[in-house]
């Protein structure tokens, strides 16, 4: 099945992709070219916010790919997201160069005031954009690969696997909090100046990042769509529904799981890398188990096993969060908690499941 054919069968996906593509063009134009007095002007604030949502959308696709299609509930995708973010953050840190407060050409500020004498080995190479991007992909992939290699081979499944992924991100959270690690501890990496020579404070750069996020999301969507509609994708669904049977038929279940899991981690890593320059900070909080569980909820709310559902869920929940934390700060946790319960109890197919039902009827 070609990608085009796959797309034809995915009406929700067509709509979602069209909206994203439109937004990718319209939002930057309305930000840069439409004057501020015009009601159609999109403020930089709104664009940054939407850009963040797009990154979350890409992340949600990654979570959905393993959960919706492969049946692996990962409670640790925040770890891959954060690692990608740290990769980008390290590049941006190195770009500051001697413009830091201490004027040290090599060491980031937090290392200077903690008396570090030289750059730790793992910071080398991050002055090059291509190297940093390579790491953004490789590090999450490697972690996912190693973790998956052990876990899938010894047939750790279901709830156990979820808890192990949670332990993984928790261990990384603790590790990144440590100042000795050389990643800025609790403060993380911040005060970025520019990317590829463009100032991060310029609206044009922000627009560029927004477009990049939109393109990445579309690309991620299409590649996941391609995977899920291919033969491999059908094996995945089979593994989700009857793992043992697939194994008896003769498929190497652990290999399928391993590759999909790794690919999903890469998507999360890219999302993280795009997220960091837009929000301006990366810190260990992104590793917190709570953050990872929230990601799963986006997918659950949107509707698992439909890629557009994952995107819709990410946008919906995050918009609700942005809105509720202003309107009713106390109610936010109640609302989030209720969302978890109600969606799992009454909407096993998520919000988009509701729409689909109507279609059928």
């Amino acid at each position, binding site marked *: 099945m070609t990608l085009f054919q796959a797309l034809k069968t995915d009406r929700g996906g067509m709509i979602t992709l069209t909206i994203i593509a439109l937004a990718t063009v319209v939002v930057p134009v309305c930000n840069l070219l439409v004057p501020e007095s015009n009601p159609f002007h999109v403020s930089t604030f709104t664009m940054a916010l939407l850009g963040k949502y797009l990154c979350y959308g890409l992340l949600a696709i990654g979570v959905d790919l393993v959960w919706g299609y492969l049946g692996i509930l990962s409670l640790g995708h925040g770890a891959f997201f954060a690692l990608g973010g740290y990769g980008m953050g390290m590049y941006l840190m190195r770009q500051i160069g001697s413009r*830091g*407060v201490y*004027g*040290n050409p090599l060491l980031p500020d937090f290392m200077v005031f903690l008396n570090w004498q030289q750059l730790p080995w793992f910071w080398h190479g991050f002055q090059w954009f291509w190297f940093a991007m390579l790491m953004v992909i490789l590090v999450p992939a490697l972690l996912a690969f190693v973790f998956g290699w052990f876990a899938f081979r010894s047939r750790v499944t279901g709830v156990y696997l979820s808890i192990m992924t949670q332990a993984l991100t928790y261990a990384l959270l603790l590790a990144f909090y440590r100042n000795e690690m050389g990643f800025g501890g609790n403060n993380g990496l*911040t005060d970025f100046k520019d990317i590829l020579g463009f100032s991060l404070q310029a609206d044009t750069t922000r627009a560029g990042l927004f477009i990049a996020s939109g393109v990445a999301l579309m690309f991620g969507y299409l590649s996941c769509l391609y995977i899920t509609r291919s033969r491999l994708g059908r094996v995945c669904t089979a593994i989700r529904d009857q793992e043992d049977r697939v194994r008896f038929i003769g498929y190497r279940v652990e290999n399928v799981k391993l590759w999909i899991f790794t690919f999903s981690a890469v998507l999360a890593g890219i999302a993280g890398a795009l997220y960091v320059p837009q929000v301006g900070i990366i810190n260990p909080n992104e590793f917190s188990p709570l953050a990872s569980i929230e990601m799963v909820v986006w997918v659950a709310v949107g509707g698992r096993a439909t890629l557009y559902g994952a995107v819709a869920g990410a946008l919906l929940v995050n918009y609700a969060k942005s809105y509720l*934390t202003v309107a009713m700060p106390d109610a936010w946790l109640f609302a989030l908690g209720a969302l978890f319960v109600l969606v799992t109890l009454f909407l096993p197919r998520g919000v988009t499941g509701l729409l689909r039902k109507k279609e059928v009827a």
Partner: protein
Amino acid sequence: MKTRLLSFALTVAVGMTTLLSGQAVAADTIKVGVLHSLSGTMAISETTLKDTMLMLIDEQNKKGGLLGKKLEAVVVDPASDWPLFAEKARELITKDKVAAVFGCWTSVSRKSVLPVFEELNSLLFYPVQYEGEESSRNVFYTGAAPNQQAIPAVDYLMKDMGVKRWVLAGTDYVYPRTTNKILAAYLKAKGVADKDIMINYTPFGHSDWQSIVAEIKKFGNAGKKTAVVSTINGDANVPFYKELGNQGITADTIPVVAFSVGEEELSGIDTKPLVGHLAAWNYFMSVESETNDNFIEAWHTFIKNDKRVTNDPMEAHFIGFNMWIKAVEKAGTTDAAAVQEAIIGVTVPNLSGGYSAMMPNHHITKPVLIGEIQDDGQFEVVWQTPGMVAGDAWSDYLPGSKDLLSDWRTPLACGNFNVKIGKCSAK
């Protein structure tokens, strides 16, 4: 038909927007942003500061507002989420067009919003004691720098209590790391040997203190007077003090001086086993002064609960807010650049009976007080600096920063001027 309807709708929409923006002008208030977490882990501490700001703004309005206009508080909730701090800061400045923002608690939240304030050239008043090593054109640091809290406290222990051995215990994040670096350098400069300093870091919310307290006990048994300098954060304090009490370490054997434990934190602890342990701040609720009495009374009336305590960051907001008011009046406008220029040198009363001034490095002068914990959850001041101490942005005890100087007045206008090479490093 359809197009006509559409154009009608558009006209209405445009009309509404102009009407709305017109109304905003007509109301003619000066907006003040309040950026404190109202949910999440930091809500415990920050909610109080939000209420403090609302009270201060309310009082100012009763006095007739500012420049003939009323002040209006714009409260947002960054939910203890650091990237969200930056997002909400941008929202306050660009969407709500606030004249100044009062907010943040943790270092990481300040670091997160800093680029936003610099980019959009707005003002932030930051009310919490912090690790120093920062001086931004757009930020005013009304909390204590390490030389306004840590170093005087150590001086007191050394001189008045004859402490010879030191345990520097802290939570593993930037504030304790930097403070302990500065203190270790300071102690060594005072002739304390390496073997008489023990440094220990624990994770956030650490709850099993058995081995660490046992180690402190062993360390303190070496025959010299020992003290613990604690930069342990928030939740980890209760189990820490409990373990100290149970292992028989009392304030007269090994006193603990804390930099992050104030009245608000003590209100959740049974303080009887803690009596005599110390804390260093620039303000205690028990300070006797008329301004303080008035402040406490106003607070109790505002919050409608006379059991609520006041604490040091609240005082910092009190000072910062009054400084901003005075600077705006002096400049005759709320324009950020004008206020930045006007505020340096502004002097306002603080709550401990003296006057605090804004220094050219955007830090302020404050007295340093050492208090002992009492069984009613209050502190009794046992020592205080004779005069005001000016906040030092760059520590003299860190090799990287001892050559740096901050002066935001016009000729220099630099937050990190390197004296040695005669150059401003940033920008």
